[in-house]
Structure formats: C-alpha cells, structure tokens
C-alpha cells in the first residue's frame, strides 16, 4: 500500500530531496507547499497520510501551521523537518501536538526510518 506524503517547506530543495529519498519505497510525495497557508490548503485537498513541516517559512511559520492542522484533524501526523531544533522550539511544537522531529540534513534511510516510526 502506498502512503502519501505532503512536504511543506519554503525551500524547493526539501521537496526534491524527500521525493528522491523515498523513490522505490512505499512512500510517495504527492505534493509540496512553499508556505504554511498553502500547506493547509494542500492538506485539505490531498489528505496525505503524513506531513513533513518546516519551521521558518513566510506567510505562516511551521508552529502556527501545525496548530491549524491539528485543529483541522487532531490525529494529523506531522514530522517537523527543520534546520532548527532548539529545546524551546521543540517544546512549543510538542505542546501543539507534534510528536516527530527530524533535523536537516537527512539521508534517505533516516527519513524512511522516521516515516516508519510514525506508523509503528
């Protein structure tokens, strides 16, 4: 069964890298959004199984985006995929309901392992 991934990140690199890292796996990147608001729109449109979400983005940052996504679906599965990962930020994300974190840069096996962990 193919599971759908949505990438929300203002860097097109992340969409390319995640797509490449998941080639030939059960995971398929079905869309990307370059800011949080677009990401929410894409989430509603595509209903992915899991979202990778950046923190620092224009229009709406990752924390605000996560808050709105949880409001839409309390069971939404989000992996915070960011270059930043200080304790204050992680605690703020946990309070919103984000349970999974991955720091950039990442290798194909690390993101595949993180996705597997989400559905354990």
């Amino acid at each position: 069964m193919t599971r759908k991934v949505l990438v929300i990140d203002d860097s097109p690199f992340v969409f390319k890298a995640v797509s490449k890292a998941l080639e030939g796996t059960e995971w398929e990147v079905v869309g990307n959004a370059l800011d949080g608001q677009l990401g929410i729109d894409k989430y509603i449109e595509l209903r992915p199984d899991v979202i990778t979400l950046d923190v620092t983005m224009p229009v709406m940052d990752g924390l605000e985006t996560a808050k709105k996504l949880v409001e839409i679906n309390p069971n939404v599965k989000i992996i915070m995929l960011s270059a930043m990962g200080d304790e204050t930020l992680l605690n703020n994300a946990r309070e919103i309901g984000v349970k999974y974190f991955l720091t950039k840069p990442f290798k194909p096996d690390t993101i595949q392992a993180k996705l597997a962990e989400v559905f354990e």
Partner: protein
Amino acid sequence: MENIAEVLQDKQELLFSLAKKSFEEVVAEITEETLVANGEFSIPTDDRLSLSIIIGLSGETNGRILINTSVAYGNNIAVAMNFGDPLDSQDDLFIYLAEFANMVCGRAATHINNQFGKREIWISPPAIFSAQDLEIITPNVSSMKAYYEFTHGKFILDMGFSESSYDDF
C-alpha cells in the same frame, strides 16, 4: 568599559565557536568527512566564479553569517546533498546551496539557543551572490573567520556581529 568589551568579546567568541561546530557537523553529515579548520587562504578566482551565501541573524544578537566559496566547490556540496547524483540544472545549484547555508545557520541557532537557554537568535532566509572576484562588504560589522579545505573544496565561514548589538551592554 574594558570589562564590557571583554564580556562582548567572550560572547562573540562563544557564538563563533558554535557556528564553526555547526558548519563542521552539517558538512560531516552531508559528506561523511571530518573537518578541521585550516590556516588562512583565499578562494582562487582566476578560473572560478566566486559564490557567497549570506544569512542574517536577529534577536538578542544581531549580525550575519557568510559562507564564501566558488561555484565549482559549491557544486560539489550540492551534489553530495543530492545523494551523489548530478544536479538537474544551474537553478538547482542555488536552491541547494541556499538550503546548505540554512542548515548551517539553523544548526548554529539551535546550539546558541540551547547554550543560552532562550531564544538568543533567529535566522532569516538566505541570499546568494555569484560573480567574478565577488567581495561582500558589511560596514559596522566586526567579523571572525574560519577556513576549511576538504575533499569538496575550499570554504570560508565568516560570522559578523552588528555594532548595534553593543547597545545592549
């Protein structure tokens, strides 16, 4: 007054040491190569386009981080980020290198914020400049530099602190 200057110098050296640690960690994770800072050198520009990536730092400390290299060396890092495969286009080079700088500066912000136990700095989106014999000058900024030469090329990490930060002391 001397005491304030010493405190400021100590703080800047701590921030710079964390920025260097971040650069070394991120490059090691991308290239699986262990880095050690080298002695001073210049990036050869006779047959190479210079390339600089700049990211602003804001918050309790204001300043910027510059990563200076060449297009050819930058391409080596970008290919490593692409899991060893060649890039699709020149546009990809700049997209990948902007993200490389974002990773280095994001990691630096993480280490710095954890060190201070609060949101000491925040980073801005990167900007990339490329030209022959490019030199970026940032007035009213005191900077510290670290030089790295490894398999993928030569890179200069340059962290500058805005003099407006001194007003806090």
